[in-house]
């Protein structure tokens, strides 16, 4: 635990990639197999399910610190990170001099779920007493999750590749899926011979950057597959040894969420892995993303919700065919194989082939992109016909080219302070538009889009122009106008403005506008009508 805490501090104290990689390699080199495995799992976010309720943790911390719960809440709000707030309010280490290994601590936490509340409390508060300030923070972070400590997955992969003497792509592949350190060894995870035994294991997703040059620089339009960019859930569908696995890009195993795909376990040949977009679909068209969201949120899938949001996978790539990893082959070969697979005599109603569209020039592609919403998509994907299937986000062979966002001008009406790097700084904003009675009603929340300098300026202004405080939220004088960009808009009965936005963010600070120039609720409803 001490060494892992030191690793945490080393990573936390530098912004330089090489120093972070170096710290991880150093940790691995000086660890036994089990500690190394546990550390890797934690660094890439594979941790045991949260064993205790947040409310309990807060309560135990407040009572250990001798403060009332409201004061703990106020403190937590300023810190912005629960584990850090707890580590800071706890009294100094009561029983120093004891050492715990990382696997020991993680295993105990993993087993806590089965224990009574009293036992949980005794275990956790016991650690708090025996760990020092930094260890407590890391320990509590293990419980609360969000174990982001300034290392990306790519960085861990880099460190592991150095340590193991393996290729980065191979390491990335082996780390896929929600594996748990309790059930693995370094050998089961990384040695060549065990690869075939891991049926569930997905391939790393290949991701595209937004096109940031003129499309003409990509060369002849004929060298590219051009597909609609759909707004669903990116997924990987695996059939191996008669078993089906559906993974999301966030590496959640979603097989049970999509009973539509169940029959594929027997229909598709063993050793098939398809990459595609999972999306609700009816009468030849995708349904709005909100339909998907209501379905994903459900714990139990009723026949009603299944029929209201029938899902398909729009398939765009084939990664494994007859048990062979074909990611290295050119895309046109993979696509031919995919097409052959999907057009076989047995039809798979839940699988559609992603259409490629023929264009004679980039000009035509640009026109299509401009009008993408009319075609139920958010832009186009450009994929070089002879490209291999890469790993992670890369430039060059695949590009996304999204249509311009929709925009509206809103007035800043509420502010709340942020978390982590933005704790204690008002960075979470709510914007309003005018309703029929001339009242500003909230229509968008946005956290990003301003520079650090603008955030600091606005923070300062907010603190001096607060009208009312509601716990962590402040209402402010309606004064500043911002242009809000968003990808989609739909009617919503849950919001006062009557609309819900998809991916709202701040496009720019409109210092040239005053509140009366902001948009109205009627404008937004009109926009929804226009997009229908």
């Amino acid at each position, binding site marked *: 635990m001490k060494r892992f805490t030191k690793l945490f501090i080393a990573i*936390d*104290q*530098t*912004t330089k990639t090489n120093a972070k990689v170096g710290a991880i390699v150093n940790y691995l080199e000086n660890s036994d197999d089990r500690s190394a495995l546990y550390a890797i799992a934690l660094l890439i976010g594979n941790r045991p399910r949260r064993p205790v309720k947040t409310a309990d943790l807060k309560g135990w911390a407040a009572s250990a*610190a001798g*403060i*009332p719960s*409201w*004061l*703990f809440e*106020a*403190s937590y709000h*300023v*810190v*912005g*990170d629960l584990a*850090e*707030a707890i580590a*800071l*309010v706890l009294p100094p280490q009561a029983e120093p001099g004891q050492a715990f290994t990382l696997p020991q601590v993680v295993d105990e936490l993993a087993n806590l779920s089965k224990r009574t509340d009293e036992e949980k409390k005794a275990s956790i508060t016991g650690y708090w007493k025996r760990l020092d300030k930094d260890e407590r923070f890391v320990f509590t972070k293990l419980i609360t999750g969000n174990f982001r400590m300034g290392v990306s997955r790519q960085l861990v992969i880099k460190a592991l590749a150095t340590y193991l003497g393996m290729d980065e792509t191979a390491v990335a592949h082996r780390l896929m899926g929600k594996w748990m350190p309790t059930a693995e060894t370094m050998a089961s995870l990384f040695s060549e011979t065990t690869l075939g035994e891991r049926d569930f294991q997905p391939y790393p997703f290949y991701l595209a950057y937004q096109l940031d040059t003129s499309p003409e620089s990509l060369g002849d339009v004929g060298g590219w597959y051009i597909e609609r960019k759909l707004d669903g859930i990116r997924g990987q569908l695996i059939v191996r040894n008669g078993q089906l696995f559906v993974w999301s890009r966030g590496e959640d195993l979603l097989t049970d969420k999509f009973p539509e795909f169940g029959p594929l376990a027997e229909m598709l040949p063993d050793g098939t892995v398809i990459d595609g977009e999972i999306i609700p679909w009816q009468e030849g068209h995708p349904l709005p993303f909100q339909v998907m969201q209501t379905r994903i949120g459900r714990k139990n899938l009723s026949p009603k919700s299944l029929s209201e949001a029938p899902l398909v996978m729009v398939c765009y790539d084939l990664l494994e065919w007859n048990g062979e990893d074909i990611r290295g082959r050119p895309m046109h070969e993979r696509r031919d194989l995919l097409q052959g697979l999907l057009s076989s005599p047995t039809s798979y109603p839940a699988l559609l082939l992603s259409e490629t569209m023929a264009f004679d020039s980039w000009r035509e592609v640009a026109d299509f992109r401009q009008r993408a919403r009319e075609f139920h998509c958010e832009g186009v994907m450009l994929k070089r016909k002879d490209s291999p299937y890469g790993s992670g986000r890369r430039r060059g062979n695949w590009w996304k080219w999204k249509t311009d966002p929709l925009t509206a001008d809103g007035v800043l009406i509420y502010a709340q302070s942020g*978390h*982590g*790097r*933005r*704790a*204690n*700084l008002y960075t979470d904003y709510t914007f309003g538009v005018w309703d029929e009675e001339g009242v500003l009603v909230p229509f968008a929340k946005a956290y990003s889009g301003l520079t*650090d300098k603008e955030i*600091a300026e606005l*923070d*300062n202004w907010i*603190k*001096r122009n607060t009208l009312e405080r509601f716990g962590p939220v402040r209402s402010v004088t309606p004064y500043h106008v911002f242009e809000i960009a968003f990808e989609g808009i739909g009617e919503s009965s849950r919001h006062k403005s009557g609309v819900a936005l998809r991916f709202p963010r701040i496009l720019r600070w409109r210092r040239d506008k005053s509140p009366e120039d902001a948009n109205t609720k009627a404008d937004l409803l009109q926009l929804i009508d226009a997009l229908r």
Partner: protein
Amino acid sequence: MLQFTTRGIYCPQADVYIDPWQPVERAVVTHGHSDHARWGMGRYLCHPHTAAILRLRLGIDTAIQSLEYGEVVTLNGVRISLHPAGHIIGSAQVRLEYGGEVWVVSGDYKLTHDGISVPYEPVRCHSFVTESTFALPIYRFPDPASVLLEIKQWWRQNAEAGFNTVLLAYALGKSQVLLQHLDPATGPVFIHGAVANVNAVLAEIGYQFAGERITPETDRATIKGAVVVAPPSALGSPWLKKLSPYRIALCSGWMQLRGARRRRGVDRGFVLSDHADWKQLNTAVAATGAENVYVTHGYEGPFARWLREEKGLYAREVHLQGGETTEGDL
């Protein structure tokens, strides 16, 4: 006896304001930081060392009356005296007594010793006006001696690795604490012009601090394995270029939180403060014996509620204009 007005804390009987932020006829100034000592008052009353600082900062020299710690001046029957606050050189708490009633306005203060300013002394009173910059239980500062030791070690490591060490701290107060404790045997000590200006004033009143001012003429080659003390405003400025390669740290109570340090993008954050932390604030309030506590400058709401509900005091939060001390003022 005291009122909280839009111009500042006011004593009508003596017709005097304490740390006012708008021009008034007569002002008592607790210490020389710019959010407490402002320009434009008819007459100033403060500690002699603060007087020297006011002359530098505000360019005034006539209308300042200075008062030693413990010395009493009587204004229309109100006995006014200053008492050490331990915040920076010359910082004072203001004690006002009239008709047997005693009030104390703390100004900014800390209970730990910094080795330079006269240590804080508790003053018994009926009503205490306290600051609350770090009045949350998450602010429990480490012992300053151990932090200074860490800073010295860090400098040594950086020097060995071929880096200069830049320490960012208030020009008035913390810079001198650093300079007092840094060992010139480790390497050369340099200071930013803003720090040099303050040191020059303090030299006039008998305080000597090490450190060579960096000027456009300073030979870059001499800045090697050096420590450089500069105000936080130097962060991100082209002035730093001359010091490359360097590692940079902020020295501030705000560095207690990871988020604050990461947001600034510095290599290290050292928790070193001129303010009282949670524990010191509670100790100070208890030591005054005051039954009425007015909380200003910081986390007024939570601290007042804590004193009210947990300590049984009559505690009220007072929002003074411009009194919201935040990291931005670091």
